[in-house]
């Protein structure tokens, strides 16, 4: 089954709540649904915030917003890297993929 990138959108799982605490040396996040605590870097934290604020966005749209929020060029965080991150987050039940 092959899907093009723009066919997948992302949202938080039903009943999910994410709590963030920003510190100088990292962002600590609590996944209230699973009861797990994670240490995140800025790109992972911002990605989750974007998905939480705007559920259903396609990968490419998230990528655009992410580069904007972090004020970094495309070379610093290519789309492929974001895809890897999103599927990693999906495996941890932090986000879920929806067909668009």
């Amino acid at each position, binding site marked *: 089954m092959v899907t093009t990138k723009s066919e997948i959108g992302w949202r938080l799982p039903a009943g999910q709540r994410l*709590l963030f*605490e920003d*510190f*100088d*040396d*990292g*962002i*600590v996040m*609590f996944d*209230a649904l699973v*009861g797990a*605590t994670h*240490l995140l870097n800025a790109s992972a934290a911002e990605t989750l915030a974007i998905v939480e604020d705007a559920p259903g966005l396609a990968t490419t749209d998230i990528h655009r917003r992410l580069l904007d929020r972090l004020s970094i060029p495309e070379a610093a965080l290519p789309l492929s890297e974001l895809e890897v991150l999103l599927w990693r987050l999906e495996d941890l039940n932090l986000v879920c993929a929806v067909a668009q």
Partner: protein
Amino acid sequence: MRVGSLSRDDAQTRMAANGLALHIPPITVRVRSPLRFLAEQMRDLYCDYELADAGDFADVDIRMVRVRGIRNFPHTEVQFIVDGTTPFDPFPLAQALPMFEWGLNWVFAHRMHRYLLLHAAVVERGERALVLPAWPGSGKSTLAASLSCRGWRYLSDEFGIIALEGVNVVPFARPAALKNESIDVMREFAPDAFIGTLYPETRKGTVAHFRVPTQSILRGRAPARVAAIVFPQFNAGASVSLSALGKATAFLKLAGNAFNYEVVGERGFRAVSALVRKSDSYVLRYGDLASAHAALDDIVRRTHMQ
């Protein structure tokens, strides 16, 4: 009335009949056992604690009974019974007291989720509490015991009990379990301190218990505000060095070493966050007690100036 005001016979009779019950804030514990030597050892270590009536509500009721030994030799082992169950394999009879101490720790850690329970020693000076988390090689128990002989208040050597609503730590003052070389180190550092019976060949080596100084017991249940979290690292002969720790790093270390962080869930997350935000975190490397004390004195002095 204090445990120490009982005669040896009274203590033994109580324990063998309806139980020796005492207040160990924040809980009340009742111990029932026919073992006379256990009553005597407890009377020594808990002499300053308030007695409870055997009929009062006890948070934990523990029975220590003789059981048949594995080599079929009758009555050479002791068993720890709580709520009609035996959570552990039996211990050699002579180790009844260490078994009681470890057993009570285990029971406490499993049922007191109204608090966040850090695995740490806690001491206080001048209204400022220091949390000293446990990890291999920390020497936290020896540190806490020695500090309490130099004017610090001893809150606990094992449990940093954090009230979920704030950043206060609540005492749970119990005899500090010293192991192997630490026993001699303590004797040398504080010759007047009371150290109880020596128990060789326990699962953790040779163990003896440091009795909590009367002054600390008299401070009772009063909570204390956490000023700093200091991760101690003992290395014989090393010179002392104190380094600041990032808050996210401190967060994960604290949460990882807590007894019940995962059970308490979101409120635990909030409590640890508040703790690391409102206090400073350090790693303290030390090779001798005096230098460690000086460094910790310094930390408290600094927090007073803020």
